[in-house]
């Protein structure tokens, strides 16, 4: 029987087949899912901000793209995943509000998605699929058995990548 493992904002977790990793209500945050197709080990991080280097203090490593993804890889390796086999799917990074002021926070979704992609490239993890941007929230479920990522929204339906 598959368990659903829920992950909060600025948090991450790993799971073995057939468990399901879920994070609800991604706005400007980005959900990063990593998967090893042989061991069927999966990991999911709910990333809030692009780079830890821009923060006053790092504290929680799961919060930033550049620290969360390496941490997720490490936890997956501890479970027995092989780094060279890992592939990624990502979703989120929306712009929920539009302002005229050009306030930087309004671009945070876009910046999060960019930072996630850069970090994945640096770690040589192939990005298989993405559903990022737009102006709507997403709830995602990552199935460790198949590597499929289910995406639910309020206004634009469901999707599997």
């Amino acid at each position: 029987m598959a368990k659903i493992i829920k992950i909060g904002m600025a948090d991450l977790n790993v799971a073995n087949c057939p468990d399901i990793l879920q994070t609800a209500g991604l706005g400007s945050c980005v959900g990063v899912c990593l998967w090893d197709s042989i061991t069927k080990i999966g990991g999911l991080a709910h990333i809030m901000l692009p780079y830890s280097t821009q923060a006053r203090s790092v504290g929680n490593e799961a919060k930033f793209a550049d620290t969360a993804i390496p941490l997720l890889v490490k936890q997956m390796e501890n479970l027995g995943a092989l780094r060279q086999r890992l592939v990624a799917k990502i979703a989120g990074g929306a712009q929920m509000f539009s302002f005229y002021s050009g306030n930087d926070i309004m671009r945070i979704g876009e910046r999060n998605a960019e930072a996630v992609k850069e970090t994945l490239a640096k770690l040589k993890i192939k990005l298989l699929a993405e559903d990022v941007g737009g102006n709507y929230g997403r709830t995602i479920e990552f199935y460790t058995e198949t590597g499929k990522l289910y995406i639910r929204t309020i206004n634009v339906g469901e999707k599997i990548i």
Partner: protein
Amino acid sequence: MSAFLELTESQLDALREIGTIGAGNGATALSVMMGKRIHMTVPEIKIIPFTEVTEALGGAEQVVAGLFTTTTGEAPCNILFVLPIESARVLVDILMGRPLGTTAELDALDKSALAEVANVVSGAYLNSLSGFTKLDFIPSVPAIAIDMAGAILDTVLAQAGTIGDHALLLETEFSAIKEKITGQFFLLPEQGSLEKILESLGVTG
């Protein structure tokens, strides 16, 4: 370690006090605007880890109308007004002079009416905050999103995320009992703003 966790009891009291008066002004403005009596609760200060934020607000997937105002000035803050979608519809019915239960989908005009509510309520709140602190808070035009509560909050909190791992939410609940409208009002100080507000109130330690 989050600076929010180091707040003293007297600082928390001061924040609660400005919350009470600010939200009171907001509620009065809303009452006048709607021609209905609006009740409010005593504000609560919530200092919670990001990982628990959406749960604390009744679930990440609940559909809400989020009305978001940022302020510029010496101590930038964000104001978020959250209404469950059912309450937003009733509020629009009242504002547009429609019989209760008429509004289904919110169109552009309905959304702009809601934005005006946020404008008036935030303005009243900020006026009192300004009166207390002698700091200027210049509000932006409110932005509106109708979506999952979690998605709205994570966007608003991403800004606070550079400070620490906790969010400080000064939360007040509003309700119009007869019309079954409920809503929450949040004040979220940005990095450095909380210190300035507390300093101006004379409660630095």
